[in-house]
């Protein structure tokens, strides 16, 4: 197991290097620079000084190597647009906010999504099936900004103790968590429904029934654990998407998370911030994938790693 995790970490470093390189090339192939603006002409000498300050006057190859060296020390550099703040500070400030929202959303999605899917499968082609599939179709097809605005309009403005926007207390997180959770919840429900239907048709379910254990025990002990595997396998991507923050939800509810920087940094050509958030996101994603793969081996013994390492 330890050997496997070490191998995965080594692979992760290679992946992150690839992410850095591709982002760096793409970023610099877009015309413009952080300091050019449309309406204001910056005097030549000031521009030169700025470029020098951030090392942008050096050849691209040198910049690239310098950047790699800094990242090796987990230093993402100084933001070019956010005044006197380093990228590390921005991430340290925004990530806990986004992560809290994301974790709450994931918990909601994980509690209700698979349950909804399992119920749909157990009552296939009956009312509970149709109801949960309508919920999941809404969840998949309605964009989060519509849902967020809808919540603000019809819930936050009517219910006193639920604020329209802001951050700080638990009540601030209720609506955005739900808005964020609905999409993965719907995905989980659909995935769970189809895998549950498949599992319920398996021979070992019949074996379980033939032992005389109750229907409830057959479902809980034999069906759910096998049916949840596909949900677990997409969990890594879903978690990292949620904890890294959502631009839309954070904008609607006025939440100081990390999500907004993914978009604004690109518009601003804030090179260091673009690199910072992208690489950070890649790291979160890779960490979650590893975590999920380890969790997977706990649920499915067939892919459990033996001591011999195969």
């Amino acid at each position, binding site marked *: 197991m330890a050997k496997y995790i070490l191998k995965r970490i080594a692979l992760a470093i290679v992946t992150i290097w690839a992410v850095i390189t591709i982002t760096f090339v793409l970023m610099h192939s877009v015309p413009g620079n952080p300091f050019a603006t449309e309406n204001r002409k910056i005097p030549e000498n000031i521009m030169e000084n700025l470029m020098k300050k951030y090392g942008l006057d050096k050849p691209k190859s040198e910049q690239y190597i310098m950047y790699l060296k800094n990242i090796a020390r987990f230093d993402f550099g100084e933001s070019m647009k956010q005044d006197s703040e380093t990228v590390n500070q921005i991430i340290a400030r925004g990530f806990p906010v986004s992560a809290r929202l994301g974790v709450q959303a994931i918990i909601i999605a994980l509690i209700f999504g698979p349950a909804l899917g399992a119920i749909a499968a157990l009552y296939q082609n009956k009312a509970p099936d149709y109801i949960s599939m309508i919920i999941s179709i809404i969840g998949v097809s309605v964009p989060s900004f519509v849902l967020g605005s809808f919540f603000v309009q019809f819930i936050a403005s009517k219910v006193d103790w639920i604020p329209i926007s802001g951050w700080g207390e638990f009540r601030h997180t209720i609506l955005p968590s739900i808005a964020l959770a609905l999409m993965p919840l719907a995905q989980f429900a659909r995935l769970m429904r189809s895998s549950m239907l498949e599992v319920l048709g*398996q*021979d*070992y379910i*019949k*074996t*379980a*029934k*033939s*032992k*005389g*254990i*109750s*229907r409830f*025990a057959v479902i809980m*002990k*034999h069906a759910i*654990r*096998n049916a949840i595997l596909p949900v677990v396998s997409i969990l890594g991507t879903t978690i990292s998407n949620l904890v890294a923050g959502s631009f839309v939800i954070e904008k609607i509810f006025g939440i100081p998370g990390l999500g907004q920087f993914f978009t604004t940094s690109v518009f601003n050509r804030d090179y260091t911030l673009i690199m910072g958030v992208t690489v950070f996101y890649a790291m979160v994603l890779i960490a979650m994938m590893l975590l999920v793969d380890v969790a997977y081996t706990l*649920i*499915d*013994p*067939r892919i459990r790693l033996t001591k011999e390492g195969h």
Partner: protein
Amino acid sequence: MGKLLEVKDLAVSFQTYFGEVEAVRGISFHVDRGETVALVGESGCGKSVTANSIMKLLPMPPAFYKSGQIFFEGEDIVKKSEKEMQKIRGDKISMIFQDPMTSLNPTMKVGKQIVEGIIKHHGLSKDEAKKKAIEMLDLVAVPQPEKRVNQYPHEFSGGMRQRVMIALAMVSNPELLIADEPTTALDVTVQAQILDLMKQIQDKYGTSIILITHDLGVVADMSDRVIVMYGGKLMEEGTTHEIFKNPKHPYTRKLLDSVPRLDMDRSESLHSIAGTPPDLYKPPKGCPFFERCDEAMIICKDHMPEKEYHTNSHYSCCWLNHPMAKGATEGSEI
């Protein structure tokens, strides 16, 4: 020896989108204590439906009991509720399925799967249950049972998994074991081992077995009596000796002709039965074997023959065996 199981005029159908499929159409048979009865026939003739309806394991709907009774120890299973059936399943009647590769839960340790039923039925403690699981694995000759009990199904070979299935089925010492093609998915040498094991266990516990198979070799080896099923009906029934030595129904004869025998002349060729079984969505009015039978007569088309007893234990359902049909030939009218 008294009757353990008596099936009377059982008919089971499936309600489908296109109409009713009559899978089992009025069959009657019985199983005595301690005997092995083979239910023989080709695919789609209603064998497995019969087996599953004894356990009430068919999904209802679409399946439903159209008529008949299934008396087990004197009580009618057809009338029993799901709760009452749960007490019988795994405790008094157990089942072994065809494919050992898919019949065990891949995410549960085999030991736990073996004792799950007996824990439910007899409330064993954790330690007792584990001891019982090891004992059962030992009984079915799985080597190193103490170690194997904590392993998962994927760590077992096909033959070993079928042994686990037998252990699972026998753990509560059931009165009746239904084996639905228990050796079909196994290779021949393993087949023989599994059959031996089943015989040993039967000798030890006196369990009655319903053996469902299309393999007549298995039948000859295992069973006391044979029931030949075709198109949802029973065609012939008799002791194994009677069926093999003196088959009375043309279908039984054709089944026997399609199996290689050691005493066969090398020049003799094996015969397959041409055609396919009837569509039970619209079952034929007369003898279901009519279309594939070389000896069919006009009466066979529209009239199902009655049982004709040859001995106390041997009957067949064929117009050829009707007292008035003696000497009749193909195509002749009665």
